């Protein structure tokens, strides 16, 4: 093997090593998902078979949870008392899921006012700050929690503009201005369902549908029914 061949082989080996390292990086990037958070069983608490999911929506996720996109609107989920930046939830099949959403964001308005009506819950209604309603004013919608495959569309009204002590970055505390929204729905067969927000709440983007609205971990997620 001549000198030229040795040089070529050396270059080739270098390229292969670099390529493998790059390949591992790309594979890691491609397969990254937000952490899966399981809903908590409610049997010890309420005495009814089911699970409880506690979510929070914030106007800006903040540099602590997202150094690259601190101003993006996002959902968070509570796991063991701490707020986790994830939108992948695990719930059991054929069961009842109670959801509590702490809404800290202001309103953006629904793009399709039809989605201002609560759909897919056990009684066709949701409870907002203690009051049971079946539809909200679409202008007041801040986000939705929707699982179209299960027929669940829950509009979430926002914190009024003039409210005091609004939350700036996640995680937000109960002392700051918020709305508490609860609803209950039933899951069916096992599967990997997707859920999304239908309010164009991504500030600064065309149609409000860019950025966080299209990124897993912010305004879109999976519901693992197992």
């Amino acid at each position, binding site marked *: *093997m*001549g000198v*030229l*061949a040795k*040089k*070529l*082989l050396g270059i*080739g080996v270098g390229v292969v090593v670099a390529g493998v390292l790059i*390949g591992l990086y*790309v*594979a890691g*990037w*491609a*397969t*990254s*998902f937000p952490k899966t958070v399981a809903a908590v069983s409610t049997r010890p608490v309420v005495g009814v078979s089911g699970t409880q999911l506690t979510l929070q929506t914030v106007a800006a996720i903040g540099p602590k949870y997202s150094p*690259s*996109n*601190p*101003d*993006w609107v996002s959902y968070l989920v509570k796991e063991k008392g701490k707020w986790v930046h994830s939108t992948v939830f695990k719930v059991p099949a054929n069961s009842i899921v109670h959801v509590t959403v702490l809404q800290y964001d202001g309103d953006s308005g629904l793009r399709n006012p039809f989605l201002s009506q609560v759909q897919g819950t056990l009684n066709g209604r949701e409870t907002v700050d203690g009051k049971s309603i079946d539809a909200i004013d679409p202008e007041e919608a801040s986000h939705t929690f929707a699982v179209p495959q299960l027929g669940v569309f829950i509009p979430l009204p926002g914190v009024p503009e003039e409210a005091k002590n609004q939350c700036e970055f996640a995680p937000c505390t109960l002392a700051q201005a918020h709305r508490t929204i609860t609803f209950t729905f039933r899951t069916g067969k096992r*599967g*990997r369902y*997707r859920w999304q927000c239908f309010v164009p709440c*991504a*500030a*600064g*983007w*065309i*149609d409000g*549908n*860019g*950025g966080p609205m*299209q*990124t*897993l971990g912010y305004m*879109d997620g*999976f519901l693992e029914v197992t």
Partner: protein
Amino acid sequence: MSTAEALAPTPARRPLWRRLVGFNLLTAVIFGVAGYYIGWFIGHQIKGPSFEFQSETDENDVALMLAYLGGVIGFLVGLGFANYPISRMLGRPASLREKEHEGMGRYFGLCTDHKVVGIQYLVGIGVFFFIAGLNAMLIRTELLHPTPTTIGPNQYLSLVGMHGAMMMGMMTSGILGPFANYFVPIMIGARRMAFPRIEALTFWLLMAAGFILTSTIFFGGFPTGWTGYEPLNEQAVMGMDSYICFFALVGLSMMLLGLNMIATIVAHRAPGMTWSRLPIFVWSVLATAVLMVLSAPMLIGALLMAAFDRTINTSFFVVSSGGSPYLFENLFWFFGHPEVYILALPGFGIVLELLPVFTRKPLWGYKLAISGMLGVTLLSFFVWQHHLFVSGINATLRPFYMLSTEIISIPTGFIFLCVMGTLWKARARFTVPMLFCMGWTFNFLIGGLSGVFLSDTPSDTDTHGSFFVMAHFHYTIMGGLIFTFFAAIYYWVPKMFGLKLNERLAKVHFWSLFLAFNSTFMPLFVLGMKGMPRRVSAYNPDLQGLNVWVSISAFVIGLSMLVFIANVVYSLIIVREPAEANPWHSKSLEWQLPTPVPVNNFDQIPTIDHDPYEYGTPLPPPRGAPGAVPAGG
């Protein structure tokens, strides 16, 4: 004085540091990074009412576009592309001095020897071909399951887009880059291309573009697929800018490559090389070059408008401010349809060029083949709306585009007739390049016939936007162009490198690729007709079985490519067995030259006095029998 000569010291090799300083790839990378950060800095300093949303979106598209622009300019200056224009402006004489460099270093910088550029293209495009192929492997891994399980939905769309954009952008120059650059001047009896520095520029633009596309994963990827449709384009995160810059640079590279080819073929032919003596491969290059020059500017224009929409708040495509997404669709496909013929035509040229060598007969229907290629070239500008049949365009336009699309299959059919005619009563030797040509014939036949289904508007209603379309274009582009890409590699490697590729490994490569390719893409026709849309990672669970079959076959394609790489490494780097001077016994001009081909190709420009395909035993003179064959078809 022989003793004096014997005692004269050999010229010392320049020290390493001296070789590293200067206009080369290392300097180019350094300047490129510097240019990137300068552009990024300027972009962040620009403020104004158009940019007030940046604080909310955490995105600065202006900065990224300027950064890419700065990076590319720095990269090209670092390679030395500015040197010649500046030296001419300072009054220094014209020259092609970069050609005189020697050694391996030529391949890593600006070289005006068209043969070096050809090999640079071959390796550069090969690298991006494999990267895009790996993307495809990841895509097929995800499609093993009917819901997104392995790869996140955002990343999946970016992979789909990267695979498509990289393949389309790179393989457009897949045959023209390596093989036309290397062999067209030799085939027409010239010493060089018309514009050697532009030739080198097209290569390095393409490499910069490919790098920019791969960098999209650092900016969030892009969700639109390779077609970049508005308004989704406008809603996308910063990674979309990588796509826009990539394709604009690819368009520029295509335009310049086409320009160079046309100028060379028109102006640099040797004496006696009349149009009717031009090898068919050169004709196909000419037809492709015309398409490149005319269609690429549309792409660049459309992308510029998209870039303006994303950065300075114009509203070409924003509906609420009076724009229209139809505009982008039409501009894009006005480029997009000629683009796919840019991919198909060189394949035609390679097959028709190689067949006479391996059948030992002249090309059957030379003039028919040329009219087929030119017919395709002309008609390809009149068919683009067949991509838009169901999109709500004026319904009365559709029969016209249905007709034009059906008609374009007529000149395409001429190529098949020429292939069949050349095989008639041949003494065919089924060497590896010939096998790939036969594979092309089978694949393009299926691809072309499926195109007839798609051109029929009622049938297209079911298959538009589904995996049927995917199968159609993979059959024509991968089964067509890529098979001829490999045919050309196996055919010309003995000439380009003077080395032999291992024949057994080559045959394993061909058969595994051909069988796995058909096993992968034939079921996609069925999947499309069963209702699976394109670019999805969630599909009807009933279709999982077929998808698993397709994915496994796709992995076998990947393995066959590994066989190819193993062959290349083994034969060209480790074993390095010299090839015979003319292993295929070709009568073409390039095989009459020594290997390696001298820097200036010919010592004396030849005078051409015969047709290019002087194969075969001449027929007995006509005995007055009716319908005797006229010579020259």
